[in-house]
């Protein structure tokens, strides 16, 4: 089956910042993303778990974008402007996609 080179960008970020991030992503002309719920985690600012939360504050989500390789820099710049002062992780890996016309 015919596949196409692409990049998979995975951004783990606080739930309160989700809307700001996806707005920035869309402003960078990224046409698609998927948001996954996160149960808990740990990092430099300590551990947390969803059952220890009473509000949406400090919960996190994972935003996944599959994009054309030439779009990565624009996306990372846009994401970074939002993520900058906030906790979270951004990673990128190579992948192949079906149906390139879709994104």
């Amino acid at each position: 089956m015919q596949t196409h080179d692409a990049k998979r960008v995975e951004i783990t970020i606080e739930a309160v910042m989700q809307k700001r991030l996806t707005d920035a992503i869309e402003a960078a002309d990224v046409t698609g993303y998927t948001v996954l719920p996160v149960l808990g985690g740990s990092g430099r600012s300590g551990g947390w778990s969803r059952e220890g939360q009473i509000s949406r504050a400090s919960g996190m989500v994972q935003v996944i974008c599959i994009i054309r390789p030439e779009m990565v820099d624009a996306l990372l710049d846009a994401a970074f402007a939002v993520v900058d002062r906030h906790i979270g992780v951004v990673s990128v890996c190579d992948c192949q996609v079906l149906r390139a016309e879709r994104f």
Partner: protein
Amino acid sequence: MDDILSLAANNLVSPIILSFALGVLAALARSDLSIPEAVAKGMSIYLLFAIGFKGGVSVADHGIDGTLGLSLLAGIILSFALPLIAFGLLQFMSKLSRLDAAAVAAHYGSISIVTFVAATSVLESSGIASEGHMVAVAAAMEAPAILSALWLVSRGSSGQRMDNDLMREILLNGSIVLLIGAFFIGWATGPAGLAEIESFIVAPFKGVLCLFLLDMGLVAGRGLREGGGVMRPGLLAFGVLMPVIGSVFGLGAGLLLGLSTGGVVLMMVLSASASYIAVPAAMRVALPEAKPSIYLTLSLGVTFPFNLTIGIPLYLAVAQFATGG
């Protein structure tokens, strides 16, 4: 004095307080007891809807009180002013950075709706009436404190922390909208509307509050277990002193406004209580460098239990003394 003690003792063995204590103990003992996030959120929606609705019905019932507008104004001023006091106190009592101190201060200007709910439930048990519109005052006090805190921070640094999006998020956050919305629904439908849904929002209310406080206890206990380390004595003392100071301002406002005994108690409780939902969320957006382990532990792990156990009976006793009621 005996009365206060017996009321406090009575308060302490209520199912509500004991449920909270059970949650704290279970979390400290590292039990895996937990209430699903969706269920906890469902209960909080129920409580907000019920308390807002009942407030509105009471306004419909007793007519709109001349003090409504002034009470709202007093609440807003308190919410703006208390963070300044809290901030000053923190710089004196603790070694928090300017940023952390401002973030903590925001919590103490805002309010805890569950503390408010617990107080109304104590008033009810004691047969003390209060102004239904205090629910609207509660909603009005949620947000202004955030602005004060951001102003405190921006004095120190440059950096624009507040944008329109954040402003809208704060003013239209779910709990404010639900509280005010249910208040208007209760007002519009009045006692007839209440009769229709009474067996849903009145009868099971206290029981739901028990389970909700069980969850709050679990969360507070986990917070203490993990964030307890940051609680220096100065901070701890602040967490107990600040609500008492807040309550004094609330008392003054309540007396000036000429509220009923119950109304004065609720004004004291609102001033004394600290936010742990709306303000933390706003802080994560506007002041992400401020440490949640400090402000959440203080608000939820220290001040909330203090108000729930000792604060409410204390404020009630003082208000009864001051209003002669």
